[in-house]
């Protein structure tokens, strides 16, 4: 997935001089996850450069650049470190267009590695997506595979509005279904690991059905898509696994269509439960599918605790827990 992200940058920078890339360690070194490797050499220091360690300043200057007419694509080293920039994102990036009546706009992509599963402890594992879906004016995206990562990032860069782009870091090097004891897989052997050349986008706001099914709809995104697929396979429950890909805008049609068909729904995310994005999904499902639901919708999520280091796999909503939910929702 790293290579796909790097490629998306490359394609966008080659096509449009206004695309500039910066962040902590992204210049000479190419980023601690190497997602921007080689860009400085290829496009020069004024289009790809290291920033001081100041997330608020990175976003704040990027907003100024976007208002000027550039298209900054910036990296926050870990999603856990986005909070210092929260004010600039919420009060400024998200608001420019509306409050100025489009006199000034903010085409800006904020990328950040997200999620756990790498023994990163509480400050390298968080999934703060719900803190952004609550903010009007932002778009929120989370790919689950290299193909989507490239296409969605290109779509995000082309978008005229600010996009928060979460990259599940446990998927950087291969698919991961939560079975941490199994040997690590690489993207090479996975069909979604094959990334088309060129500048094709994956549109924001369109979900993908990763596994068709008739009995229950599983709504997931990021790493949890693979966990859900594994849980379906392991339990034998005929689940329809929907990869939301973009949380805002959300593909409500795909969700409602599937849940109305299956009559059951399980929602999976890695973030803490209370006020997580699962709550919004649950609300939408009950608003739009109330009369089709045959059982209570179930959330399988991270617990309402900091992401622990040693107890990582007890925290991570793995295939065991998702499988239990699938079985339960079928019994209810």
């Amino acid at each position, binding site marked *: 997935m790293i290579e796909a992200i790097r490629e998306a940058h490359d394609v966008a920078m080659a096509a449009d001089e206004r695309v*500039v890339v910066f962040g902590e360690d992204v210049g000479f070194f190419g980023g601690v996850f190497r997602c921007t490797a080689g860009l400085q050499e290829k496009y020069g220091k*004024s*289009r790809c450069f290291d*920033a*001081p360690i*100041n997330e*608020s*300043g990175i976003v*704040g*200057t*990027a*907003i*100024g*650049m976007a*208002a*000027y*007419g*550039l298209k900054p694509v910036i990296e926050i080293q870990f999603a856990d470190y986005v909070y210092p920039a929260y*004010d*600039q994102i919420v*009060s*400024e990036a998200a*608001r*420019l*267009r*509306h*409050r*100025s*009546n*489009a*006199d*000034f*706009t903010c085409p800006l992509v904020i990328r950040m590695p997200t999620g756990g599963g790498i023994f990163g402890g509480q400050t390298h594992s968080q999934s703060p997506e719900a803190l952004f879906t609550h903010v*009007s*004016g932002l*778009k929120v995206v989370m790919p689950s595979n290299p193909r989507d990562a490239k296409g969605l990032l290109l779509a995000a860069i082309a978008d*005229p*509005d600010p996009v928060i782009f979460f990259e599940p870091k446990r998927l950087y090097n291969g698919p991961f279904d939560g079975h941490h004891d199994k040997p690590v897989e690489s993207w090479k052997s996975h069909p979604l690991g094959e990334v088309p050349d060129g500048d094709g986008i994956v549109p924001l*706001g369109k979900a993908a059905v990763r596994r068709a099914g008739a009995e229950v709809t599983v709504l997931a995104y990021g790493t949890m898509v693979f966990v859900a697929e594994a849980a379906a396979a392991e339990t034998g429950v005929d689940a329809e696994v929907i990869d939301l890909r973009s949380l*805002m*805008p*959300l593909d*409500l049609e795909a969700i409602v269509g599937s849940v109305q068909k299956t009559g059951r729904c399980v929602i999976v995310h890695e973030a803490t439960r209370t006020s997580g994005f699962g709550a919004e999904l649950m609300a939408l499902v009950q608003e739009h599918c109330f009369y089709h639901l045959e059982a209570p919708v179930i959330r399988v999520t991270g617990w309402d605790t900091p992401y622990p280091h040693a107890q990582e796999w007890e925290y991570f909503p793995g295939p065991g827990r998702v499988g239990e939910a699938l079985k339960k929702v079928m019994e209810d």
Partner: protein
Amino acid sequence: MTSDTRPLSLNVPEPGCRPGNTPDFSGFEIPRAGAVPRPPVDVDPDAIRDMAFSIVRVLNKDGEAVGDWAGALSTEELHEGLRHMLLLRTFDARMLNAQRQGKTSFYMQHLGEEAVSCAFSRALEPGDMNFPTYRQAGLLIASGYPMVTMMNQIYSNAEDPLHGRQLPIMYSSKEHGFFTISGNLGTQFVQSVGWAMASAISGDTRIAAGWIGDGSTAENDFHAAMVFASTYTAPVVLNIVNNQWAISTFQGIARGGVGTFAARGHGFGIASVRVDGNDYLAVHAVAKWACERARRGHGPTLIEHVTYRAGGHSTSDDPSAYRSRREAAAWPLGDPVERLKKHLIAIGEWSEERHAQAEAEVLDTVRAAQKEAEAIGTLSAGKVPSPRDMFEGVYETMPPHLIRQRQEAGF
């Protein structure tokens, strides 16, 4: 622990004067006009560290323009400058009143600080971009932005270019180099640096100007602005308007133990200058110097405009609760309008009569604009923006959930 250690105690700075006390500015050092030399624009910031502890002043007590920084403006330009300040002052007075009459919800005035934004504006070129606070409407007035449009915004009427979405006075005009004002203090200081960096990245020649209040320099975004401006030598002029007060809080709480706000620049190797903010000529001269530095690639300049907020913080504020009513009158740098008027009279280019006439003309202009704006509507009456407008422009294309909500709202 050394045995003679005594209990610690908290130091909380206090202003010199609270309600009932007699204002005393005798400790406030004011260099004489003309005393500070004008360095070349490519000066090494380290070589002018003393400028952060002095004050560039051009107009002396007798209204004469003296020293290195004098002589940059023609008589015509000075006349125009006076007119801009009068326009702003009159605009303020009328809008304050309109707020009291319920025609809008809120207003903030510039009383005593008119020179800062009016004179600065003149140093910029078309295409440059200000990132102002709510107290730099002089940038719009001096650049010829239509006053009636400002009023439409204040009244949130049907012709408000911001469609009623924003609080009064939170103007936006890309065309006039005036970035959309944020209600959040400090955020835009660093954005101005980003805009300037973008200009440099693009091989452009345009520069940016950031604005911040004395109290707001305490905000963290101030630091971000200084760090990025310093590291990338951004073509930006960073303005601190030190009007001595931040609502009820005197400038000492934000400034702490350093002598001046301008000195903040020294920690970043940024050229830092203090200027008499009530001296139209001095503000303009320093602004011009700083803009030239930026435009020629010599990097950022930090300017502390030393002035005084003679009025209340906003229409929600009554300053007599926390400072002496006599403090404004005791402020030693005087009134910017009076000082420019005196200068023009001193050089034989103005008179009391012409001034009275100018005031009357200005009042007519503002009144006419107000009439025009009120004919369209105010917050309480007339034509107002559509509720649909609230849903528009959150994104370029309205996403499905907002379309559904708009329908639910019935608009």
